[in-house]
């Protein structure tokens, strides 16, 4: 992360990886942004910002049923937000020629004027923020876009072959992806920011059928695999072929595995499932726009109230959760959010007590606190809303084996199979792909159909211990929010976590 006066020189490999497309030049982008903002420099506009974004993705998928699906996608556009007389307006257009930039600005202003027609409206007062300018670029070792197509295609074929080796595997999918972005931001307060991001990822997913059931296994995460803000070195480090072979065999093993029981049990939850638990019951529950009711119609609200900071016991003393987009390497890593707020490490929950919310400038202003910088948008087309950043359960100490010894008898579970939580982020039910019996601290039989449920405070107050940093894993995730729906990309992570007295087997 850098700021305007501390711009770090890029390593040679970085510079090459980020020199692509139409918006690589920060100065040219700055000129365009200045033009956009000038179009809404009219009386009544107290604030405006503009985002100029160019993104390119390469995606490869292969399934048992079809051959290679290879895609290269490019998009380029601008989104403009205007605060007129205390009312917001937003507009976005893809860039076809220079006139479109001004069109978006004018439409945003018109929308703000329309919003201003609401009688007796509560007008937004945005506390001024000092200008923050700077440049940030993902540190990559191997530019994923410089990797040859033949290398990518060969790896994809090897993953699919390994995953589908057992005859019981009837559906299998392998995927590889890379994305690069130029994200330029400016506002009427004088901020001018340039972020150049690169992601790489991979996925494998298998379904085995037999014995009257279908069982799924995935790697490195349940739905879309995992994508890191990193170069191709991340994909190489995943050892996908070896892991694909493992999940293919495990899916078959699950077909005849005993059904997980019902009741109450002590459980260690692995990092991949904990990442989703954090996402659903912590990240979403602490989004301030939900707490204030803005998302009541679509994404829902929260059981947590705006006065919870410093007073609400959310979890046990073992529960420490932070928002930290400054940690590099996941999809929730950035230097500036989409309102230009600099990234920072913030405690959300300390020793079980709520200390902060995920916030935007608008929502933070409404409760009289500064934004922590969690305004995110899915590219230029959508207005920023409050999405999680990197929200991590901080590690405790000790290895997974030590945690199992502490567990004694119970289960080790991981990798999400199904998930559901109510609109207040309170009552949840999750299923996992795998569960292992743990007897006297030793991992034993594989079980299928494991599920658990409860309420958010009950769950987090039952957390007894979290394994150490050496066991920590982070996952990049997509998240849907907003009307129209947009995707946010964020990071969650945890070490294996010991939870006592969990209700299990709740989906039957």
């Amino acid at each position, binding site marked *: 992360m850098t700021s305007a006066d501390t711009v770090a020189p890029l390593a040679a490999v970085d510079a090459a990886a980020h020199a692509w497309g139409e918006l690589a030049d920060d100065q040219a982008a700055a000129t365009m942004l200045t033009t956009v903002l000038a179009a809404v420099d009219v009386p009544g506009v107290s604030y405006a910002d503009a985002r100029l974004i160019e993104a390119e993705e390469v995606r490869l998928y292969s399934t048992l049923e079809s051959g290679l699906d290879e895609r290269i996608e*490019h998009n380029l556009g601008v989104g403009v937000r205007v605060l007129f007389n205390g009312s917001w307006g937003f*507009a*976005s257009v893809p860039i076809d020629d220079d006139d479109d930039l001004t069109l978006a600005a004018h439409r945003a202003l018109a*929308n*703000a004027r329309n919003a201003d027609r609401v009688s007796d409206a509560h007008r937004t007062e945005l506390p001024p923020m000092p200008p923050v300018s700077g440049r940030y670029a993902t540190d990559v070792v191997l530019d994923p876009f410089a990797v040859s197509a033949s290398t990518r295609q060969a790896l994809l074929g090897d993953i699919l072959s390994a995953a589908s080796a057992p005859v019981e595997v009837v559906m299998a999918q392998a995927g590889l992806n890379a994305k690069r972005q130029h994200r330029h931001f400016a506002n009427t307060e004088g901020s001018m920011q340039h972020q150049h991001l690169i992601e790489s990822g991979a996925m494998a997913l298998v379904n085995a059928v037999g014995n009257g059931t279908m069982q799924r296994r995935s790697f490195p995460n349940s739905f*879309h695999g995992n994508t890191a803000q990193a170069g191709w070195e991340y994909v190489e480090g995943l050892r996908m072929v070896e892991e694909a072979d493992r999940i293919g065999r495990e899916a078959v093993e699950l077909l005849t595995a005993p059904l997980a029981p019902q009741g*109450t049990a002590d459980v260690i939850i692995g990092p991949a499932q904990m990442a989703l638990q954090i996402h659903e019951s912590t990240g979403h529950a602490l989004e301030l726009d939900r707490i204030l009711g803005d998302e009541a*119609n679509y994404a829902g609200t929260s059981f947590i109230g705006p006065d919870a900071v410093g007073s609400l016991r959310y979890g046990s003393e073992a529960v420490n959760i932070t928002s930290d987009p400054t940690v590099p390497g996941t999809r929730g890593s950035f230097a500036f959010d989409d309102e230009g707020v600099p990234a920072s490490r913030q405690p959300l929950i300390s020793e079980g007590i709520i200390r902060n919310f995920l916030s935007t400038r608008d929502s933070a202003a409404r409760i009289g606190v500064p934004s922590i910088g969690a305004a995110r948008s899915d590219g230029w087309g959508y207005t920023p809303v409050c999405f999680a950043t990197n929200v991590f359960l901080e590690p405790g100490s000790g290895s997974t084996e030590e945690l199992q010894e502490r567990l004694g008898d119970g289960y080790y579970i991981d990798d999400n199979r199904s998930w559901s939580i*109510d609109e207040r982020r309170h009552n949840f039910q999750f299923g996992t792909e795998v569960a292992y019996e743990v007897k006297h601290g030793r991992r034993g039989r594989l079980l299928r159909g494991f599920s658990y449920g409860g309420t958010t405070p009950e769950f987090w107050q039952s957390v007894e211990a979290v394994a150490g940093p050496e066991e920590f894993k982070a996952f990049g995730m997509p998240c849907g929010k907003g009307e129209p729906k947009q995707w946010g990309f964020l990071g969650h992570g945890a070490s294996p976590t010991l939870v006592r007295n969990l209700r299990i087997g709740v*989906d039957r």
Partner: protein
Amino acid sequence: MSDTDSTTTTAFRPVVGGERAAEALEAALRDAPADRIEAFLTGRRGDFTRFAGRRVHQSQAIDEVQIMVRAEVDGRASLAAASSIAGLGRAVANASAAAREQAERGLPAAAPRADPGPVDEPEVSGRTASGALLWGEDTAAWDVGEHVALADRAMSEADRAGGVAAGMFGRAVTEVAFHDRERGTSRYAAATEAQGSLTVRIEDGSSHWKDLSRSSDRLLAAESVERTLAEASAARGRAPLAPGEYDVVLGALAAGEFLDFFGAFGFTGGALASGFGTAATRPGEQAASSLVSVHDDATADLGLPFPFDFQGTTKRDVPFLDQGRVAEVVTDRETAFALGTASSGNFHIAREEAPHAIPMNVILRAADTTELDLIAGVERGVYLQRFWYTRTVDPVRSTITGVTRDACFLIENGRITRPVESQRFTVSVLESLARVDGVGSVSLSQPLMNVFNGAATAPPLRIRGFALGTAPVPKGTTA
């Protein structure tokens, strides 16, 4: 039409337009270095007014364009996309080069494809040949000023009642253009879309409404706002509901939520070809009540009809459950070839997913029973307005889990009596549909998750024996 600031808003018309789209696609593909090449363009221009509490907090105008090129070289295929006409040339070059690279490496050929079929669905004055409405002048006139006025009314009345309202009113114009160079076929259609949704909370009572249509008049938005306000008021004072099995009447939104899962349960060509799912393992079986007919029907004048898919294939009516009996699956050209059938026009390509055939305009056919009559047939049960956060638990058993939400009421002696609290449920969709003994007459439509131009439309349903509440597990029980 209201007094909108017309000097600075964009006219309600397609982002690209048919003539420009056709010219651009034909010109870009004409000399492309590929054996076969085709492309589709999607455009969407929308105005979306979100509100909550006492303000319009997101007043948005969004233009989006995506052009996807599919090039084939020596039987190998690759795709490339751009977000503007200006980027089309590069997409053509990228797709062609990537397909050539595959061919040079000797990678397996792309999956063979069935013939796309005839182009036989001309649009006539905003209606397709099958009669489905595509273009509503009422929607074109339903502008941001009207959205804001409706939002203001909902928020003001909720406020007067001691509650809060949150929602969204929006309109959009969606367009799809398609060109296949080798076949010399081009297609284009543009369609309007009107959406409304509202959640009202008054004390512990709440109610929700949502609907979408090509026609804004069909939303009956003003009446829906009034009804939602009244229902939220009536839902105050919720009592706990004991877990158990109840006769239920699902409101149209709750019933429509079931339709989101028909892809996951195996009503797709891909699943059938793999031998997985309901259509593969239970062909022709009476899986649901004979009162239940579920179709993927983009030719119907409900939901979001559209004449063709992104492969240029004319859409047709595909029954999934024909009077409860397991019937057909949706296909694209690839899965149709694998199954030896014709494509149903359901090719889809979404973010972070491989392209595949999916349900896109799912409709549970309505009957002629009013919702009140459905309720009248329940001696003791529950009315459930909508579900929330439903997810697949077991696709083989068609099991989903979720929670009930908003206006849920006890039914006693055929009448709604007291509001009840939300409950989690985990049920089999097909087993529930097998116990349907009443189908309502008035449908609501809602978007299908992550499906471009996708909708699910259903009327209310009466189901005998619907389990509410998680399995009763006493705390402290050792597994």
